[in-house]
Each structure stands twice: as structure tokens, then as C-alpha cells.
């Protein structure tokens, strides 16, 4: 397994932050594991982080500004209501086959604290990235959000973006009216492979569905 040399943190990466969003180091500590794709205490190379921040700055910064302001560490109430939309990935579906389980169990990154069972690989609805995100924020916001940040996972297994556009009023808007969200996160790329999966459908629709969902949100 490759070991990267220890890298010095750039000046802006404060090792510790009191903000509920924390610092790079705190995020690494919370999620990081040795011998993992995230190697604790060693930031990933810039090329990886650049690729990860697929759309950022400019308009994107303006979209996030209200949430970041709420999480700036000085607000008395920093509680976020996060809503998620997506397909089976968002529902935590994942069914490893026998050989996939064996490979995972024998990997150096597999946490020893985890029971070596199917459940430790398959996430389930209670171990999605949305839950992990909220757990991280909760771990850092006991003073400004003692009750914990709220998550509404509106996943629907086996659906693509077109489903959320067509059911927008009945599902998403209704949920918004009941309880407006500070942040909506969409994870549906796995089911949205339109030019590949729908070669016999109208080509334009593969652009129009995400456009329609983005505009509606």
C-alpha cells in the first residue's frame, strides 16, 4: 500500500477551528483512516482536490454563501435543515457479492472496529453520506445546535432526475412547504446516464431534465 510523505499544511488550513464546519485537519481526523483513499493527516494531492471540486467559486459560491454564513461559528443558531434527493445510492443500497465482501474484508483499509459482515460494507439508509455529513456537523456544533442538524432524505430507489421533475409539486415542493431546507443536495448521477441508457430517446431530454430540476430547486 502506498504511503505518501507527510505534507505541511498551507497557511489557510488552520489545524483547528471552532466553526461547526471545522477545518481540513478536523475533517481528515473525523473521516480519515490509515491506508485509505483518505489517508488521515495527509491531505490529498491538489490534483485530486481540484477534480473533486467540479463546480465551485463564482455563482457556486453565491449559492453556498447563506449556508456558510450560518456555519461561520458566530451564529447563536447554526442548525441546518438538509434535504437530499437521489436514487438507490441516496437510499444506501449496496449489495456486495461474496468475492467483493472477501476482498473488502482482506483490505488494509477495512476498519478493525467494524464487524466483518455484509452490514459493514452495505451502507443502508442510516449510513449514507448524508448521515455522515450530519454526524460530522453535529460533532462540531454542540454549542450552536445542541439538538443536532436535521436531515430529510427524500431518496427513491431506481429513479432518475426525470422522476423528481415530474413529481416536483407533489414531493419536493410539498416537503419544502412543510419544512423549508437550508441546503438541498442531489445525488442521482448513477441513474442519470441518459445518452448511454436511453439512446433511443430524445437526446435533448438528457440536458433538459437536469436543467428543469436545477431551475425548480
Amino acid at each position, binding site marked *: 500500500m502506498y504511503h505518501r510523505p507527510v505534507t505541511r499544511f498551507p497557511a489557510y488550513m488552520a489545524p483547528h477551528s471552532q466553526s461547526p464546519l471545522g477545518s481540513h485537519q478536523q475533517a481528515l481526523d473525523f473521516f480519515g483512516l490509515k491506508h485509505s483513499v483518505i489517508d488521515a493527516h495527509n491531505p490529498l494531492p491538489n490534483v485530486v482536490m481540484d477534480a473533486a471540486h467540479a463546480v465551485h467559486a463564482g455563482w457556486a*459560491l453565491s449559492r453556498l454563501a447563506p449556508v456558510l454564513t450560518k456555519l461561520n461559528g458566530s451564529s447563536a443558531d447554526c442548525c441546518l435543515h438538509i434535504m437530499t434527493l437521489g436514487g438507490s445510492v441516496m437510499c444506501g443500497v449496496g449489495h456486495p457479492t461474496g468475492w467483493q465482501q472477501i476482498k*473488502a474484508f482482506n483490505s488494509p*483499509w477495512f476498519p478493525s472496529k467494524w464487524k466483518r459482515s455484509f452490514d459493514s*460494507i452495505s451502507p443502508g439508509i442510516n449510513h449514507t453520506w448524508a448521515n455522515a455529513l450530519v454526524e460530522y456537523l453535529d460533532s462540531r456544533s454542540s454549542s450552536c445546535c445542541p439538538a443536532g442538524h436535521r436531515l430529510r432524505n427524500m431518496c427513491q430507489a431506481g429513479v432518475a432526475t426525470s422522476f423528481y421533475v415530474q413529481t416536483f409539486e407533489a414531493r419536493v415542493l410539498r416537503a419544502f412547504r412543510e419544512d423549508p431546507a437550508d441546503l438541498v443536495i442531489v445525488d*442521482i448521477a448513477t441513474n442519470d*446516464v441518459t445518452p448511454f441508457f436511453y439512446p433511443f430517446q430524445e437526446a*435533448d431530454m438528457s440536458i433538459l431534465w437536469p436543467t428543469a430540476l436545477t431551475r425548480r430547486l
Partner: protein
Amino acid sequence: MYAESAWFDPNRFPGRKWGGWPDHKSVLEHYGIPTTFWTHALAQNPHRPANVSRLEVIADALHPSRRGHEVCAYFLVELMLAERKRLEQLPAAERAQLAVQAATLPTTYAQKVGGTSLFEKLLDILEPPLTHVDFTDNKCWMDSRCSLTWRRLFPRLLDSAKGEATPAAEPRWEWTMLRKSAQGRYEETAWHNAPRLAQAADKWGFMARVTGATFATQLNISRVLRVGYLRSYSGDANVSVRMECDGHEAQLFTLSRRWEVNASIYASETLRLVKEEAGAGAAPAHPNIWSVTFTLLPGASSSFTLYSLTSA
């Protein structure tokens, strides 16, 4: 925000790795939606082979493992941290401007890339529906206030609850739950026998299993009926859709469950009452009540599952 989590198995989908990203990219960039493409980032790591990273973060052919979900959450935090740093470096005046900008939208992407015709298509799908029925929303169906309109349109969907059993010989559509078993197979259960404890990954739909199974309903339609249904690589099931309205020529369409792609997923098909050449914006003067009849055609080797009906 968007999290792009697709990382397809190169053996299963040769030459295609990144799911919906090619289509999402331009749209998300245009509207400035903060996005992390974490699976792609891991594949770019020069210090770690992509297949090794993939083994850690993907549980099966395409879904992230529990570890993969943690990694995705990490990248979302990283993206927010990077944006916070940018925000902190801005002068106060520019920060105030961002707050104004946050509530605005640029020109539609459809106009930018496709001009008027694509924009009209966008308006077509953004138009509030005249009628919308969602067979996947079991929570709403079980709430009589929420599903009042749906129950009027489909009075027999919940028949069994009222003890109004239909004759056994009559093939019918049945509201059904699909749940994945521990072995990874989907098991079908009629709604009245479904476990009360719902699971997020349950799939609900209006299902026909027996040839000749028919249902008819009255829908308010102006130009199009969009049908959401399950398409799959396994099993054949074709359904005819007959639409009739006084003063209009009857329309007949066929929907097919099977497709060539190795995936089972919600698909949407638009049944147009108006010919394309008349223009996307063209429409009859007034919406009309159309009688719509769905029938499972002979030769089905599998069930046909309807997810939603939306008219405009």
C-alpha cells in the same frame, strides 16, 4: 449542491464510467451549483490505482459502500471548506453582492445551447401538470386527505381495504411493493400484505401481471401524457395505452418494459396528442377529459410496473 457518485464498473459498461456527469456538467456549471465529483477525483489520484480506490468505495457493481459514503461526506465538507476560504477572502461589498446573486438565476441553459425550440421543450416539462398521479408515494396514498384526487381517479386501487374483492378470474392491476431481499432479488408484495414498516429502498408501483389486465381512468389532458414506468433488461411486458375523447380521434400507444440496457430503472415516456410538426407549443384550445385505458398485452413473461402519470 450536487454529489456525483457514479463510478461504473468498466467491465460491465465498457468505455462509460461517469454516469450522468457528461450531461450534468454543463448544466451545473451554467447555473453555478456547487458540485463534488468525488469518484472522479479518486480516479485522478496519482498515488493510488483507480481500481484499488474503487474497491474501497464501491460495494457492488455501482453503489457506494459504507466507506464510500463516508468518503463522499468528506469531500462535501472539503468543498464547503474551500468555499468558506474564498468567502472569507472577499471584501465585504463583494460578499453582500453574493447574497443578492444567490437568489437569482441566469438565462436558461436550454436557451443558451438550443435556442427557442429547446426552450419551448423546457417550458413544456416545467409547466405545472393538469393531473399528476404518483404510484410510488405510498405515504400519500395511505393518507386519505393527501391522496383525495388520486383515489377519485383510481377508486379500485385500494379495493382490498374495503373488502370489495374483485372476481378472481378478472385480471387486474394491483398496487404493489418491491423490496430487495438479502439475496439481492426483488420480491413483490401486494399493498395490503406489505410490511407496515416502510424502508426507503422499497419501490411502489401499479403493477399488471396477467395478460389482459386492464384499468381505465379519466384524465384532464391538453397536449401530453407523461408515463413513468419501470424499464428493465429482464422480462417482456408490453402495455397498450388507448386514449379517447369526444370530438377527437382515438390515440393508441404501446409501452415496452424491456430495453437493451443492463439496468432496471424509472423511465419516462411522453405520449403526445399533438403532432410534433405542429410545434411544441401548439395545443388544443382547451384541456379535455380523456378516457385512458391501460392493458397488458399477450406474450408478457414479466410484470409491468407503472410509477406515475402526469398530464399537461
